């Protein structure tokens, strides 16, 4: 039974395996030497990955990128209280909303030139770019979540004796939490993409720096390893948040759908 189950799982990967095999074949037997340098076979990429892991270089870059993402996330989490205030109080929303609406459509990447002049090359500049990527999805989702709290839940709390503060802390915040988490998930995803872009031009370490640096020495295998690592980390981050949120909020339909 177990073997059958395993084979069934494996069947889902069939196309992937065929494509990898085709890639390996093409890279080894069809492409000439120069072209093969530009597209190394999967086995070559695996060897590159092994080298990077053994020398410890990839761990260093990975750690730098992740810690930038984390620091930026800590700053960007001010979007949560701000969003709650904007969702609860109309006059705050009226004042802040125009600013948000102007800034929001500017992609984080468009801030790179200015931010390099402001902060120079390095951590601060990278964190700033990631911050912009994370901040707006969290803010917009928080505002939306607060506005969409079931009105009857607020009424129920009021007629059980809760005051305005009680309604905010005991009802609005809790009811909005699943969508705030969704905002965090989207934000970390956008931030992660922005991070790599920021590191391409404005950093001396990190996964973005790694792949750009590998370009200058024509190590396409390292580039591919770096790209894969970026994708895998992004996926893991997303899954991790979703898993934690499901465990902490088993009652949320939105999260468990």
């Amino acid at each position, binding site marked *: 039974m177990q073997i059958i189950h395993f084979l069934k799982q494996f069947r889902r990967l069939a196309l992937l395996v065929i494509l990898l095999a085709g890639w390996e074949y093409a890279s080894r037997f069809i492409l000439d030497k120069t072209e093969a340098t530009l597209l190394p076979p999967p086995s070559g990429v695996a060897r590159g990955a092994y080298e990077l892991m053994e020398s410890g270089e990839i761990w260093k870059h990975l750690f730098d990128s992740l810690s930038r993402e984390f620091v930026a996330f800590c700053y960007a989490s001010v979007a949560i209280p701000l969003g709650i205030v904007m969702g609860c109080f109309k006059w705050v929303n009226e004042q802040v909303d125009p600013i948000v609406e102007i800034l929001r459509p500017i992609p984080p990447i468009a801030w790179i030139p200015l931010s390099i002049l402001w902060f120079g090359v390095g951590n601060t500049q990278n964190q700033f770019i990631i911050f912009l990527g994370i901040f707006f999805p969290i803010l917009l989702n928080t505002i939306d979540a607060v506005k969409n709290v079931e009105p009857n*839940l607020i*009424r*129920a709390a*009021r*007629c059980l004796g809760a005051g305005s503060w009680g309604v905010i802390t005991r009802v609005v915040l809790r009811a909005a939490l699943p969508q705030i988490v969704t905002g965090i998930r989207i934000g970390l995803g956008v931030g992660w993409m922005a991070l790599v872009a920021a590191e391409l031009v404005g950093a001396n370490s990190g996964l973005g720096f790694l792949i750009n640096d590998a370009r200058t020495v024509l190590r396409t295998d390292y580039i591919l390893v770096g790209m894969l690592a970026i994708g895998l980390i992004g996926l893991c981050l997303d899954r991790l948040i979703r898993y934690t949120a499901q465990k902490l909020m088993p*009652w*949320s339909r939105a999260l468990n759908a």
Partner: protein
Amino acid sequence: MPALKVENVKKIYPSLHAKGQEVLAIEDISLEVNKNEFCSILGHSGCGKTTLLNLIAGFEVPTSGRIECAGKLVKGPGADRSMVFQDYALFPWLTVYDNIAFGLKVKRTGAAEINQVVTRFAALVGLSHFVSHYPHQLSGGMRQRVSIARALVVNPTVLLMDEPFAALDAQNRAMMQAEMIRILNEESKTVVLVTHSIEEAINLSDVIVVMTRRPGRVKEVIRIPEPRKMVEDTPAYLEVRRKIRDLIAGEHDLSEVS
């Protein structure tokens, strides 16, 4: 002193669409509900009965007139008028226990007392074995039991119920009405219930207030001869039902004429 007193209450809603076109929802409503009386407000949908209940709860403010609860002017929502909602409005992130305890926690009651009170009311509504469940794990009838317990825990002067059993199927509905009678026998309460079901009103009430179509006014107040003891299909029951049915049927849909 009546538990609840409504005096010449009128509610006008400003129109959302055309300027100056206001909607007169209810007009000139006066009624009194005595302590431990069960009062049903009966009328067509759109007659303003829920508006009246929202005004009593303090969720909305009357355009004119006044509402008093145990002699105190109603200015906003408060635990002396807790409500049971049609859609239950349970807090999905809290267990049954914490939902029932909500009103006590807001008051900062001690944990020991909360435990004692919640245990008693969970037993009263027959949910002792489900206190650690979340609302989404319960059936509609059970959710409404939680909602009733949650509203009773704060010991309201008047318990407000907004079509509490309308979302249930016929069988559950009949069962919950019987449960409500049992609960009220154990825990005397003043209740104001909004419903559009004539049978529900007869089964549960001391007094039935029949409302007119929009704008809602009090058409007639009917006292039930033997409250909560009427047996269906007896001549006395059918007599009351026919009377109310005639009162309601007499309300032609004026909104379509004008």
